[in-house]
């Protein structure tokens, strides 16, 4: 049955009637937040102390933490003398589905590399991994989508690490990653910095239930190890978040406004600007190409990223004059604390976004996504391959669930066809 449009039309009207008042309130909050944001600039030490104090009362505190850079500072687009190698990796997955005839899970990772002034076309590389049957089940049953997502995130970073190792002049060389053609052996890129981009934050947000599983803890430990290895290669790693919905800086401002007595009453009590996002603050202060100040992340999951992995972020206006477009960029401490690496990353991201034209997004990341994405047709074909493999070996093949079969029924057909 389609949507009951007669009924929904009434609700749409009511929704629209409330919109002006909602917008008025949001604008009021935005302005108040922005005023406080500017007022607190220069008081970064006091803000850090406030975070430490709140953390004593609320270990689950989630907010931004100022660094040495002024809260409302902006940094112009630097000029680079050396263009870096750009690596990007993105992944997609086929989650196991108990309704399908055969249970399987695939993690597909696509990578894309661009070398400066290289006469050869950029490289695209793909790696597809069918999970072993024993990895499909945990002690809690069929592997969850969160765990598969972690498999994918780990595979993305491993791919980046392997590609970075493969770059001439990298700190280590371990041969080409599986599925990749060897890089030309000339030394044209000797000493050229490497920037590695992945889509989404480096911080992995997982529900507590998933975090408590042994498999999660093992994969997460591997994830951190891979990030450390990337750091050892001096690769400038970053997670790029398009159209960010984060409110970490807004939460910091809210924390400042929260009366001391309320700090003990939990996080919810300190939320007075729900609906206001960080981009509401930075949109007005960042000119095209500019980045914001760096911030550290305070959260229970970010606390697992220690030392050189400690998570930081900044906002970056990758838009054009009159059309600001903000991205949030997460970097580990080894990048955040290295001004040259930060300048390289800043320039590369603006450069990559401008390659795509009016809708800015890093070109290399988009291409990695194109390489990695698994279509429904490919999923169906793979399922058939697995079924045939079982049949060839005389093994029983499961059946589609009745629910799934009914969903796949054709619609009405027209006589005489």
């Amino acid at each position, binding site marked *: 049955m389609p949507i009951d449009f007669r009924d929904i039309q009434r609700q749409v009207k009511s929704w629209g009637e409330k919109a002006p008042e909602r917008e008025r309130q949001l604008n009021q909050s935005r302005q108040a937040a922005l005023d406080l944001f500017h007022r607190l600039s220069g008081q970064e030490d006091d803000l850090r102390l406030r975070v430490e104090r709140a953390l004593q009362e609320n270990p689950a505190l989630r907010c931004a933490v100022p660094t040495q850079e002024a809260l409302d500072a902006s940094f112009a687009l630097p000029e680079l003398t050396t263009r870096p190698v750009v690596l990007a990796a993105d992944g997609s997955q086929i989650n196991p589905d108990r309704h399908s005839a055969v249970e399987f899970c695939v993690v597909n990772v696509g990578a894309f590399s*661009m*070398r400066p002034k*290289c006469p*050869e*076309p*950029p490289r*695209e590389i793909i790696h597809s991994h069918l999970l072993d049957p024993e990895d499909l089940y945990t002690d809690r049953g069929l592997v969850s989508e969160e765990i598969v997502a972690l498999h994918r995130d780990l595979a993305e970073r491993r791919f980046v690490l392997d590609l970075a190792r493969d770059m001439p002049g990298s700190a280590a060389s371990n041969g080409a990653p599986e599925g990749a053609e060897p890089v030309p052996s000339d030394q044209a890129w000797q000493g050229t910095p490497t920037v590695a981009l992945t889509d989404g934050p480096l911080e992995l947000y997982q529900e507590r239930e998933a975090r408590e599983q042994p498999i999660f803890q093992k994969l997460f430990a591997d994830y951190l190890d891979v990030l450390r290895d990337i750091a050892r290669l001096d690769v400038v790693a970053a997670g790029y978040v398009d159209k960010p919905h984060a409110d970490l800086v807004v939460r910091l401002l809210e924390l400042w406004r929260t009366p001391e007595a309320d700090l003990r009453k939990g996080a919810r009590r300190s939320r007075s600007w729900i609906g206001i996002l960080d981009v509401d603050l930075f949109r007005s202060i960042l000119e095209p190409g500019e980045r914001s100040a760096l911030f550290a992340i305070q959260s229970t999951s970010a606390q697992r990223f220690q030392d050189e992995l400690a998570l930081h972020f900044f906002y970056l206006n990758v838009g054009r004059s009159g059309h600001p477009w903000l991205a949030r960029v997460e970097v580990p401490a080894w990048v955040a604390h290295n001004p040259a690496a930060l300048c390289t990353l800043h320039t590369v991201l603006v450069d990559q976004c*401008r*390659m*795509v*034209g*009016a*809708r800015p997004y890093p*070109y290399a990341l*988009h*291409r990695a996504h*194109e390489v990695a994405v698994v279509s429904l047709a490919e999923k169906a074909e793979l399922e058939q391959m697995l079924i045939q493999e079982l049949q060839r070996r005389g093994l029983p093949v499961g059946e589609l669930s009745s629910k799934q079969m009914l969903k796949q029924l054709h619609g009405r057909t027209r006589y005489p066809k």
Partner: protein
Amino acid sequence: MTIIAIGRLLRASTTGCVVGCRVSQLDAPAFGCLVRIPLENGYQIYGLIYDIHIDDDGLVRQLVTAEGIDEAVILDNRHNRNVPAEVGVLAVGYRQNSQIYHLLPPRPPLSLDTIYLCDADELCRFTQAGRFGYFRHILRSTEAPAAELLAAHLRECHQAHTAAGHPEWIQTATRELITLLRDDYPTLMSVLGALSDIHGLFASG
């Protein structure tokens, strides 16, 4: 003899086919060129390239809005991305048991068959066989721009035949066209107009 493969077959019928090739391969095929599709047992289909088109996609549409496209992006799109250029080929004859026929082929080529450009020798062999029977396929086609296609084809043939010591070929071909189009004045004028645009085509005749 240089053998130039220009692509592989996407779809076909007995009257023609569409060939897919990478954009980076596009410097070989040209409008009006004679191509061949070798099949089994010495059976080979001939066709004329009457259309070359390049589809866009969402990313390409987006990229054209960028200020100054990076060379790496151009290379990437031409070499890596799966957007084949499509080459339309009009069937004009076939060869079986070393005999060339200006008839439609008995059966079409199959998916992914390789398509090759004909060299000057083969072009001369095909166009000297019979009495220009393949012109009717061009003139009857509803998809191919007949006048322009004939002009491009005859120019290439003229160069090949002149080099082979047969400069008179172009006059014979033109007379045949006039005969075929004697009852179709508009098309005849269109064809002769296109032929007259070929600089120096008749200069040596």
